[in-house]
């Protein structure tokens, strides 16, 4: 008996320690970055462009670049991946085709970002002739976000209870009406989660945008202008030893942006689920 309790307690203890390590490492990183970076973050830092060959000045252009590149990525990838998810979850069933798409999506999600960057560089920068640009960067990031949004949305659509679909079909709704009016609204929180995850990948990406969007720290005038995202800015400042202070400042702003996106979407999703009545 004693022995069994001992093992039990040790087991629980180990789980507890693992949990603590996870939470602590996350906290340490965030706190450290904020502590190092926040003192630099002033109104001027947010609203001015880099100056003196990036050694001084702010990060306004890079914030614009990150937001724009992410927006393009999400606008391009969301419709495609949600449509594909609907097809896979509702129409295709478990065929060799859907299994292939699923396998492809999982493989895509695991490919190192530099490979996407190389692909984007050859396809969009080079062949398509978009040069280093907002567009090339955005579309490359769209490819990276695609498998994430696809798989998460597919799962969200799959878990919509059959009873809802049957209820709708039994009233003479067509399959399309059922999907559009019942399945998608019910799956929406899950789909939004997928979009946010895809967004997270796009916001945080460095290698792929460095190779496709360039490193031009000015506010772009059109989608064909090169840009420098915040992550590339951090990379440049750190590797060329231009200003560690400003690198941390940029990182702090980036962390806050990601946290803000996550918290807002969590809040919106919870409110939406409550409206659906699923709060029980």
């Amino acid at each position, binding site marked *: 008996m004693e022995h069994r309790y001992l093992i039990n307690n040790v087991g629980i203890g180990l789980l507890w320690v693992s949990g603590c390590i996870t939470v602590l490492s996350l906290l340490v990183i965030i706190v450290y970055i904020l502590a190092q970076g926040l003192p630099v973050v002033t109104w001027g830092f947010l609203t001015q462009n880099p100056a003196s060959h990036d050694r001084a000045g702010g990060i306004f252009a890079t914030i614009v670049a990150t937001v724009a590149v992410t927006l393009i990525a999400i606008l391009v990838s969301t419709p495609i991946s949600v449509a594909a998810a609907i097809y896979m979850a509702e129409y295709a069933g478990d065929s060799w085709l859907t299994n292939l798409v699923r396998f492809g999506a999982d493989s895509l999600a695991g490919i190192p970002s530099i490979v996407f960057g190389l692909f984007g560089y050859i396809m969009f920068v080079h062949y398509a002739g978009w040069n280093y640009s907002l567009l090339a960067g955005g579309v490359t990031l769209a490819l990276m976000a695609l498998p994430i949004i696809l798989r998460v949305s597919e799962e969200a659509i799959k878990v919509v209870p059959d*009873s809802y679909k049957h*209820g709708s079909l039994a009233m*003479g709704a067509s399959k399309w009406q059922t999907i559009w009016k019942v399945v998608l609204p019910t799956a929406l929180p899950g789909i939004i989660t997928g979009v946010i995850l895809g967004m997270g990948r796009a916001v945080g990406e460095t290698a792929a945008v460095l190779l496709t969007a360039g490193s031009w720290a000015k506010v772009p005038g059109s989608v064909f202008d090169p840009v420098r995202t915040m992550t590339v800015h951090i990379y440049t400042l750190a590797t060329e030893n231009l200003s560690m202070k400003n690198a941390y400042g940029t990182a702090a702003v980036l962390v806050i942006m990601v946290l803000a996106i996550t918290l807002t979407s969590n809040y919106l999703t919870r409110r939406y689920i409550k409206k659906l009545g699923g709060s029980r």
Partner: protein
Amino acid sequence: MAAIDTTIIKDTPASPAAAGDYEYVIESKDLCLYYGKTMALKHISMGIRANSITAIIGPSGCGKSTYLRCLNRMNDLVPGVRVTGSSTFKGRNIYDRDVDVVALRKQIGMVFQKPNPFPMSIYDNVAYGPRIHGTRNRQELDRIVEKSLRQAALWDELRDRLQDSALSISGGQQQRLCIARCLAVEPEVLLMDEPASALDPIATSKIEDLMRVLKEKYTIVIVTHNMQQAARVSDRTAFFLMGELIEYDNTRKLFETPSDRRTEDYITGRFG
């Protein structure tokens, strides 16, 4: 979607007609259903009269729900299902190739075992059917919602909560809401698949009261594993056993003097 193989036994000309023009609103002839190679319904022939309640009883797995789902072709959704024989709705074989399943299901509504309101407001649930069938006018929708909820005896309970989530009301109310949702598209037949099996006795008796009122306007077919319920509400009762229709008669006759030994064994509780 499952391929439906149909053999037309009787080919009646399709003409718009009132339910009263036929002895039976729904009439199945030699209806067989296969799940792959398994025969789940064996040569079912029975007719369902307008403005009556027909109960289908039998032990679990006897095919009663499967038969019910044949009547509005919900079995089409099950992969590998094949149906032979015919089942007519107002003289028209619903398994004909050119039958519009969507239109058919509008006329033959269905209430499921587990209440399945959509995760939207009470109002939107009832307005769902009219909306998908093209009603956009707000006043018209308001009118339909009120009328349907009144018919389902829910209006007084829920009139002030129309914008609340349909999932926030009780199970019994949810099931009556599902009935109201069906009524909103003005069907002629209501198929009910054990509609009270997930409900407590009080909610059950409300559903039964409702059925008695609704049969004035609608034809009701109810599948139930509860024999007392069948005896209480139905006019005619069919007893199914292992995919076969054993006996079909007036409810009173079937329960008091069944002509088949197996029916008697079942209703006296010797098996099932």
